[in-house]
């Protein structure tokens, strides 16, 4: 049995690619090594509760009727109506640093006004930055250009605190690299968070994933769970077959992998020369989920999302210790415009974490370390927020090690490699990548990545007989 395409990974990018191919009657199979779909944006259950993984909020929110935004395009390409996503916009978020607070909503002008008030000397520079952002084509799939975002920001703004405050949410929600960010990534994140906005779907990731899986299957797509890939076999630079961990061999004209660029190349047999030169993503996180006996607003947490730093210079790099609690992201899922309020109050806390150190812990120390660093994380929050410890009825934490264990993404690097392959091409003909390493980030971004790669390399490619020689 030969497939037109096999997709490795049933996360958002893999499912989206699958839907596009099945929609145009390609014989497509998605293979997923885990028992659950979703990859880096999945979910899990404990007792009677279901928790999202990787989702604080969807970025790139635009309301119904906006068709040219990333979300609008995605809905058109996958043939969904806006209402089907059941998106509930945020109330208000903030960036909190020791001496300054910037609030923002899904109305971009609100942030512009905040900056004018909090940083009056910077507002002209900020408008200059906005012009640069608006003029830039961040969706260009040409791999060649690299512009440092820091250079652009420093050419427009002179206050390092404002620069760090703008970076804080953008890095936490999508920077694979330590320190600086490529300008095109900066533009993608800036638009998705500030110019567009946040929303959460009613029902969370389980709901969104079910929507995608149901559509995929109704179009004739095949999905195999617990079917990890052992190797991608190639010959003379061309894809031959896929071998699963259960030794089964599968054949397809093309393969799109969402496993990550390094992870994908490591599966290739014979081994790809220079594969070890590629940079593996380093940035990972620890996240704790606190279920409360009351609503977050009742304990003084009234924002949708808070990006904070307890120090005036914001650091974004692999921490020297297990976790860096001096900055983080605080999410209160309840503080979104839900039609019906969720029944329990939840607070989620995320900090930067060091995969190697977490992975090296002995089993017996691991649990104690989670508790220790969770406590430290909450303590750091008390710089700005009230203590909610007395109201916790359930806690869970997951670390970079958890992320690696369930997704296979090396180092639990949720934003993938700092080197993005915008074209999606690999050294092996007919083997492509999609997902975070192709470069579009976030839930909407990853979904668009799957759509774009399926369109470019499979659907469109068939119209061009010379494709592949580029």
């Amino acid at each position, binding site marked *: 049995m030969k497939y037109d395409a096999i997709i490795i990974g049933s996360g958002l990018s893999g499912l989206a690619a699958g839907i596009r191919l099945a929609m145009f009657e390609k014989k497509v199979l998605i293979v997923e090594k885990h028992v659950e779909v979703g990859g880096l944006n999945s979910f899990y259950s404990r007792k009677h509760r279901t928790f999202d993984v990787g989702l604080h909020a969807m970025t790139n929110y635009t309301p119904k009727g906006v068709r040219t935004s990333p979300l609008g395009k995605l809905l*058109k*390409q996958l043939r969904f109506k806006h209402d089907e996503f059941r998106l509930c916009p945020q109330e208000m978020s903030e960036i909190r640093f020791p001496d300054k607070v910037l609030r923002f909503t899904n109305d971009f002008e609100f942030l512009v006004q905040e900056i004018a008030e909090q940083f009056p000397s910077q507002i002209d520079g900020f408008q200059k930055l906005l012009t640069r952002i608006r003029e830039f084509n961040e969706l260009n799939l040409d791999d060649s250009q690299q512009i440092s975002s820091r250079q652009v920001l420093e050419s427009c703004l002179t206050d390092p605190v404002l620069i760090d405050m703008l970076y804080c949410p953008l890095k936490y929600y999508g920077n694979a690299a330590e320190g600086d960010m490529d300008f095109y990534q900066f533009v993608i994140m800036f638009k998705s968070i500030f110019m567009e906005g946040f929303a959460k779907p009613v029902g969370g990731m389980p709901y969104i994933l079910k929507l995608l899986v149901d559509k995929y299957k109704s179009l004739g797509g095949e999905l195999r769970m617990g079917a990890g890939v052992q190797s991608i076999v190639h010959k003379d630079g061309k894809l031959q077959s896929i071998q699963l961990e259960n030794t089964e061999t599968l054949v397809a004209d093309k393969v799109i992998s969402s496993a990550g660029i390094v992870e994908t190349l490591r599966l290739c047999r014979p081994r790809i020369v220079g594969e070890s030169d590629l940079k593996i993503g380093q940035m990972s996180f620890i996240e704790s989920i606190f279920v409360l006996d009351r609503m977050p607003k009742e304990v003084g947490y009234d924002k949708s999302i808070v990006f904070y730093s307890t120090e005036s210079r914001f650091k974004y790099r692999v921490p020297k210790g297990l976790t860096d609690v001096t900055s983080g992201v605080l999410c209160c899922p309840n503080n979104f415009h839900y039609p019906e309020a969720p029944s329990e109050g939840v607070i989620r806390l995320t900090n930067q974490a060091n995969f190697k150190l977490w992975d090296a812990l002995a089993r017996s120390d691991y649990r104690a370390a989670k508790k220790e660093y969770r406590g430290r994380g909450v303590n750091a929050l008390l710089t700005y927020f009230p203590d909610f410890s007395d109201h916790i009825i359930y806690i869970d934490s997951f670390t970079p090690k958890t992320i690696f264990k369930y997704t296979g993404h090396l180092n639990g690097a949720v934003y993938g490699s700092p080197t993005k392959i915008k074209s999606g091409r690999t050294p092996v003909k007919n083997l492509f990548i999609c997902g975070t390493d192709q470069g579009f980030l976030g839930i909407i971004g990853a979904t668009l990545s799957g759509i774009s790669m399926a369109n470019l390399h499979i659907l*469109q490619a068939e119209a061009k007989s010379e494709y592949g020689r580029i």
Partner: protein
Amino acid sequence: MTREQVRQAILNIISDIAPDEDLGAVKDEEKLRDQFDLDSMDFLDIVMELRKRFNLEVPEKDYQELVTVASSVEYLFPRLKDYELVS
């Protein structure tokens, strides 16, 4: 297929791709891109739908023929006239 059937087939495809658009108001001589929010991804879908529904390949050099409803009908009619619609 008659010219009218070809025209309707084109409008059916557009309505699947852009379900929120009001096709009743379409102007056949005006560029589709100007009347509806259609980008290059949407145009790809129009071509893909023609392939799927009518087994018709539109080569890239002919994409420009599809800019208006009128030009699309002119381009597709000779290629689809032997195709019988099974309703």
